[in-house]
């Protein structure tokens, strides 16, 4: 059996993963897969809008990863901790997928650390709206096959006490032990609400599809994990909010093709659309006779809460995130308190160390992204606000809803 370390071409890599996936699928079918035996998984990552293909090795080198080119845009990753073997496929210089068969308990940790240590790397954030669109757009409307939807809300700022120990930032600590069946990991010790809904796709569509009104209340606003039929309908794919994908199908090529399309045609197109709409800048325009004028370009991103946040929780959010520099949002800034309460912050997004301006009140958050700040900050904010503050928040990119922009992207495919 070829080892991932001996792969010398893209075709060889695909053959290797095809073969591996097929064997794992057999084990899954026989229910003989041991916990901790990794499935093929992909971690979708983003560099930056300005990244060039020649920058890739350097970006990963800064977090101690050695990339060896294998094929155009394909690298083998050496010297990872815990003998993790992995390959990186850059779909574009901006978006890539890290493939590995290592168990999630190992690979989640290693990928998370690399992203945390880098200001040039971020997760691809599959927000609730994106996950919702994936299972609805990519499955047959009349499908009688099953899908599983997981909704989550974490009361991170409710009743927060400064001495409380911080939880790790990662929201996905699931090991592969859950692959035996659809059971989900047990509740953790923090105030995390979870709802798993499993059903035939056509039934789920009528309950959760467009135009339907969710009967399950507040929690169903934030979809964080989807398990749905694979492209060839043999086995399933699983999508996580932090950009991890697991291949439980019988082959790899369809899985890779689907994730490539999702990355560039959906996520990439949406991010570009967002950046084009909201980037705050002074755009210089020169007329025919050399006269200059400057258009003040931009638009706010508005997060309108379905109910105002409890004022105490709002203050805790500001205190924890900005005064103490802690919590899951990883934002920096000195809060300028106004009456209301309202807070203005000329801040930084510490994931990418880029500027972000925030106008926050218990009723709504407004974010303004100065030119140069990456649009995926919006996806991350959306994912975090839905998870930690309000699963049903309405998100506007300029005057369009986030969902409408996403629909526009899918329609253009």
């Amino acid at each position, binding site marked *: 059996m070829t080892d991932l370390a001996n792969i010398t071409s893209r075709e060889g890599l695909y053959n290797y993963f095809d073969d591996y996936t097929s064997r794992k699928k057999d084990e899954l079918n026989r229910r003989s897969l041991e916990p901790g035996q990794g499935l093929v998984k992909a971690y979708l990552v983003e560099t930056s809008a300005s990244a060039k293909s020649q920058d890739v090795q350097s970006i990963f080198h800064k977090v101690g990863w050695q990339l060896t080119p294998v094929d155009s845009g394909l690298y083998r990753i050496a010297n990872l901790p815990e003998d993790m073997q992995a390959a990186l496929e850059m779909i574009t210089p901006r978006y890539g997928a890290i493939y590995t068969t290592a168990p999630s308990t190992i690979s989640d940790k290693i990928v998370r650390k690399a992203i945390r240590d880098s200001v040039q790397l971020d997760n691809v954030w599959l927000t609730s709206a994106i996950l919702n669109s994936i299972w609805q757009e990519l499955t047959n409307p009349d499908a009688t096959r099953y899908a599983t939807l997981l909704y989550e809300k974490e009361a991170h700022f409710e009743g927060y006490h400064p001495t409380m120990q911080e939880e790790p930032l990662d929201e996905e600590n699931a090991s592969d032990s859950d692959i035996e069946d659809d059971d989900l990991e047990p509740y953790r010790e923090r105030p995390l609400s979870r709802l798993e809904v499993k059903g035939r796709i056509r039934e789920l569509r009528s309950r959760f599809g467009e135009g339907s009104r969710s009967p399950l209340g507040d929690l169903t606003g934030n979809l964080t994990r989807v398990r749905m039929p694979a492209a060839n309908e043999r086995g399933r794919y699983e999508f996580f909010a932090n950009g991890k994908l697991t291949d439980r199908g019988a082959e790899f090529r369809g899985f890779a093709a689907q994730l490539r399309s999702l990355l560039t045609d959906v996520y990439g197109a949406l991010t570009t659309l967002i950046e084009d709409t909201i980037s705050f800048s*002074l755009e210089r325009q020169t007329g025919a006779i050399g006269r200059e004028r400057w258009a003040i370009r*931009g638009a706010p991103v508005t997060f309108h809460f379905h109910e105002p946040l409890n004022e105490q929780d709002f203050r805790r959010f500001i205190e924890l995130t900005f005064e103490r520099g802690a919590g899951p949002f990883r934002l920096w800034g*000195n809060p300028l308190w106004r009456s209301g309460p309202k807070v203005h*912050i000329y801040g930084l997004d510490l994931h990418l160390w880029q500027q972000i301006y925030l106008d926050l009140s218990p009723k709504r958050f407004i974010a303004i992204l100065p030119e140069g700040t990456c649009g995926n900050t919006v996806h991350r904010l959306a994912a975090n606000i839905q998870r930690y503050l309000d699963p049903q928040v309405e998100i506007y990119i300029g005057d369009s809803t986030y969902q409408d922009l996403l629909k526009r992207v899918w329609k253009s495919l």
Partner: protein
Amino acid sequence: MIDSSIVGHPLFQLNLMIFLCWPSPVADHLTINPVFYAAGYSLPFIEGDIPVPIRSYRALRNNGHHVNKIVQPDLLLEHSTTKLFLPLECKRSGSSAGPGQAMGLLTLNGTELKSIIGKSPQEEWTTIIAYLSVESNGGYLLGELSRLAGVLAGTGVAPADVASLELLYRADGVYLVSVPDSASLPDLDVRIATRVLALDPDEDPRPFYLIPYLSDQGAEADPVAEECFRESLRSAVLVLFGQLDDERHEYELDSVITKGIVAWPIWHSADRQKQIRGYVRKFIRDSFADLNKKLHVQCRIDNQKILLPAVTAEVALAVRDYMANAGFRHRTLGLSDPIQGTFEDVLSTED
């Protein structure tokens, strides 16, 4: 208790106008109601110097009238479907409006302004000069503008149309209304006061200050705006520390300042630019000294150049952790200190 005079501050008006022209949900309960955007007006422009047409300038001067040779409205909007220019001035009151600038603006009728801006000669454009002020001041301003327009017409120059808009502060928000006899704004009927900013009782009406400082053009002192200005610069400077990695980096001081003051490239006053550069240079130098002391990383600022050394991944991470750390914010470099004295004092005493 809210100080309702905030809405008269030109910075408040300028920043509010930007939001009213930017795309955002059109609904008056969602904080900002972007009425200009909804009515089809363009993004706001900041114009370069607009020369008053020579013929108009000479006609006025020859008749003993005061007129500026160069004018620059605070903002200029366009309404492309009706081919309208809307130069806009933000004023607290009638007394803060300079007659020379007003007279100059009034010479910019549609024919003159379309030629200056470079629109097609075949197109017919009109201009409405609008002054934005606060309750009870718009009537006086409209009277003055109409009087000056009459003077202009008396010298044989066709004046632009005029409009006066007022911002009204109320407990539930800020409203926009046009003063009676103002020229009608296409597709935007504000003869009846329209809420443009929804507020809770006792909520500070200030929108986020995208442009926190009005350069050198007679800005009123405003400690809140000054604080925004400093914070904006701080965030722009701190972006630098995220760039530390295994390569050397060199940045222009002005490119860093532009990240904090978006309008920096079009500031007029060289003296004021020099002061701001001095202020930012000192802040950067202090940050670098602190970093060297704490983590032995030697960054330099050499006149207009900022130089970052190559460091290991571990050091880069340590620097970012240190800068993001709450202790750095609260104890080092006075990043959370209240501003002592006026901003003018700060600028004139540093570097």
